[in-house]
């Protein structure tokens, strides 16, 4: 048993942008830029650049307009840009982390690269994926999920996390199709199309 109890979560509230995406709140001049804004990569990054586009949708089918999504992923070789990465340095041109507010129409966007494969603790390889964390008014504890790629069908079929989802129809909620040059990932908080959320 841990000695100290984890600080309990509370909602990020409707004004989360002030602290996390200040320019979206209309708050400029404090920081040089919003942390995590812009592409997750710099010029010269290894790998295939891609666009992720999605919405966060409530239990009535309405996109929410005040959400913030964070993305965390490996580089093209499957290495994380993190001091906790034990296998060696990641591509220095790849940050691996980004943050996006839902903008006009409730749409969030990430400009990133297709991640490489990362091992599962038992040595099997996971399919390429991006970890996503979602906060907003009405969300009491940040929701974790993963984005997988529809054009990685063979890897997806062997993925340890996807295979833990008993119902095939729910597995498909984590797989983003490629449409008009972007991977589309709508996150359904509740209802028939509810996205699989993770207890990590």
């Amino acid at each position, binding site marked *: 048993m841990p000695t100290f109890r*984890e600080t*309990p979560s509370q909602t990020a509230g409707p004004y989360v942008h002030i602290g996390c995406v200040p320019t979206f709140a209309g708050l400029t001049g404090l920081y040089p830029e919003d942390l995590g804004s812009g592409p997750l990569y710099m010029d010269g990054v290894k790998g295939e650049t891609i666009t992720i586009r999605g919405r966060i949708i409530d239990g009535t089918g309405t996109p929410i307009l005040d959400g913030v999504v964070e993305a965390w992923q490996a580089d093209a070789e499957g290495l994380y840009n993190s001091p906790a990465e*034990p296998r060696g340095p990641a591509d220095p041109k790849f940050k691996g982390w980004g943050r996006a507010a839902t903008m006009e129409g409730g749409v969030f966007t990430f400009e990133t690269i297709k991640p490489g494969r990362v091992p599962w603790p038992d040595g099997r390889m996971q399919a390429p994926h991006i970890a996503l964390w979602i906060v907003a008014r009405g969300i009491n504890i940040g929701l974790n999920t993963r984005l997988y790629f529809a054009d990685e069908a063979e890897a997806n079929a062997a993925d340890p996390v996807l295979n833990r989802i008993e119902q095939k129809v729910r597995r498909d909620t984590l797989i983003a199709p490629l449409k008009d040059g972007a991977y589309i990932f709508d996150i359904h908080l509740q209802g028939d199309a509810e996205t699989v959320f993770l207890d990590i």
Partner: protein
Amino acid sequence: MRNHNPVHPFVPRNLGEHPPSYAPGYKTSVLRSPRQALLSFSNSLTEATGPVFGHNLLGPNDHDLTVNYAAPGTSAIGERIIVHGYLRDGEGRPVPGALIEVWQANAGGRYRHVRDGYLAPLDPNFGGCGRVITDENGYYWYRTVRPGAYPWPNNPNDWRPAHIHFSVFGSGFAQRLISQLYFEGDPMIAMCPIVGTLPDPDAAALLTATLDMDNTIPFDARAYRYDITVRGRRSTPFENKLEGN
């Protein structure tokens, strides 16, 4: 490839110590909470790693909300306070080099956000946003003005207690946390539907900063002590075989 520096996964989160997603007293949660169970699994490298930000991210006044949006020579209006404490993990180990972001309303309860229409005025010298990185002991501090209570549309006459929102990065994405700091002795804490989402009375106490006269700066700012705990790592590392077998 051999794993010479194994990653330790995080201790599983005890969700019973956090608010449930569906908490109907906080009305917005009704349509924004999953109905299906979460899918649980032990951490892979995806969850055990996370972004870390260097001290060079910080500007000279990022930790001082009384001046970081103020015209030169002025400061924000309100009760001057310092909030300070330690960031540690569940085993009590300090968490150094961790980014903490904070945001809050001004002394009158008004947020500097394009969508806040509360009639209390903006303070031209207060932005309401700041950030710090914990030192080698996991210690952090920032200066600000105490925020005012704030009315919000939930029940017909709900007011938030004075609070400061905060966001914490540890060393892994699974530690990611956003919560709110409340102030010792505020009678609004017990009435608040958002505080009321917490599972037990002890949970609210964990979010309440305590008045700390010993660290108050005379004739300048009172101090509040506020320690934050993120998940610790397990002592058993991943197996030493990341490829093949």
